[in-house]
C-alpha cells in the first residue's frame, strides 16, 4: 500500500539509475507530453523502470505500462494502478 504517488522526481531518479539518463525533474515535468525517446530512454530502459517500481512497491504494473510513450502517460497509469491496489 502506498501513501504517496510516484513523482517526476522519482521518475527522473529511476531514469538515471535504470537507464543512465540524466534529466532534470523540472524539465521532465515541463516536457511530460514529450515521448520518452526525446529524453534518450529506449524501450528496454522503460522496462527496467517498470521492474524497479514493481519491486519497490511490491505490486504488478499492467503490461501497457512498458508501452507508454510519454512521462505523463506513464505516471498516470502507474499511479492509478498503485492507488487502485491500495
Amino acid at each position, binding site marked *: 500500500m502506498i501513501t504517496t504517488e510516484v513523482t517526476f522526481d522519482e521518475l527522473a531518479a529511476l531514469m*538515471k539509475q*535504470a*537507464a*543512465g*539518463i540524466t534529466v532534470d525533474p523540472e524539465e521532465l515535468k515541463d516536457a511530460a507530453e514529450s515521448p520518452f525517446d526525446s529524453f534518450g530512454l529506449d524501450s*528496454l530502459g522503460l*522496462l*527496467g523502470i517498470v*521492474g524497479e517500481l*514493481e519491486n519497490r512497491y511490491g505490486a504488478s504494473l499492467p503490461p501497457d505500462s512498458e508501452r507508454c510513450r510519454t512521462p505523463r502517460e506513464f505516471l498516470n497509469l502507474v499511479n492509478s494502478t498503485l492507488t487502485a491496489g491500495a
Partner: protein
Amino acid sequence: MSKRRSGRAAVTGIGVVAPNGLRTDAYWKSVREGLGVLDLITREGCEHMPLRVAGEVRSFDPAALIEDRFLVQTDRFSHFAMAAAALALDDAGLGGEPADPYSVGVVTAAGSGGGEFGQRELQKLWGKGSKYVGPYQSIAWFYAASTGQISIRGGLKGPCGVVASDEAGGLDALAHAARAVRRGTDVMVVGAAEAPLAPYSMVCQLGYPELSTLDDPDRAYRPFTEKACGFVPAEGGALLVVEDEGRARERGVPVRGVVAGHAATFTGASRWAESREGLAHAITGALDEAGVAPEEVDVVFADALGMPEADRAEALAIADALGAHGTRVPVTAPKTGFGRAYCGAPVLDTVAAMLAMEHGLVPPTPNVFDVCHDLDLVTQHARPAELRTALVLSRGLMGSNAALVVRRGDDSAR
C-alpha cells in the same frame, strides 16, 4: 561515393585500448620497446583463481570516455570497443555525426561476449529472483553487443555484422570489412575488444589446457622456447577504420596500411599438430589474394600460442607456405609482453604490423630468449628493416586458423 575507387581497402584510423597502452602512440611505444606489462590479476573476485597472470587494461576510466546511458547497458568488452571505435574514427578524421549515416558500417569479432555483466545479472536472478534481472541483460552479454552499441552511439547505419569464429575471427572481421568496402560501402569500423578477466569468464577459461597458470609474469608466456607452458590472456583490443584507398586519397588522410589478402581454415579444437596444415593453407590463400609472392613477405606477426606442439606447428606452417624464406624472414610476437586478448589479439597484431611498416622497425618478442624452432624470431630489441608487406597469423583454441596480408600504406599509393 568516391569517384576514384581503387578497389583497395585502406586503414585510415586506428583506436587501441590495450594493457600496454591506451592510445595508438602509447601502444606502439610499448611494443617497440618490448615492454612487458603482464602482471598478477587484480580485478575484483579474480584474485583467488588458479589463473594468476594476465594483461589487464588498467587506468581505463569508462566514465570519462562513454556516456552514462551506454555504460549502464553494456559490459566492459563493449566499453573497450566503443572507446576504441571513437579513437579510430577521430584518427581517421571522421569523428562526430556522419554526413551519410548509411555509408558507414560496423563489424566486430567476439570470443565470449559480456561475461561480467551477465554474471552480475544472473547473480540477481538466483539471489533475489527474476524480477530483479535488468532488461539490458538481454543485450549486454551478447556477442553482437559491441557492434550494435558502436553503431547506435555513432549513428552508423551502414552494413553491420559480427564475426564469431574464434580468436582468428579478429582477422576474419578485417577481411569482412575489406570486402564490404570493395562492394561499395564508404567506411567500415572494424575490430575486436574483449574483457575476459572477470570471475565467471575466468572460470570458463580454466578448462583450456593451453592456459598458462604460472604465477611469474616474466615466465608465464614464452612461446617458441623449451619453457613454453601455454598462453596468458589479456583484455582490450583495437578498432580500425577501413575505407577505399581512392576515397582516402581524395579526403587527404594518411593511409596507415592496406588490407591486401586474407584466408581462413579450420582444423579442430586443440588439434595443434593439424593446425600446421590449416595455417599453411591460410597463409597461401592470403598471399594469393594479395598477389604477393612468399619472398615478398617482410615480417611475420606470429600467433605464438605458447604450447610446444602449437609453436612447432606454426613454425612448420610458415616454412611450408613461405619455403626457405620462412626461416629467414623476421618473425615477431609482441603479444608476449601483454597477453592474448582473444579476438582482439590479431587486431592488435595488425596494428603493430602497420606501425612497424610505418616506422621501419620490427618490434621484439618480450620475455622470449632461447628460441628452439627454425625461425628468425626477433627478441630483446626492435630490429630496423625496410618493411612493405606484413603477414599476420592467428589461431583460435577452437580450431580456426587465419592469415592476413597487410601492405604499407604509402607503397600502394604509388
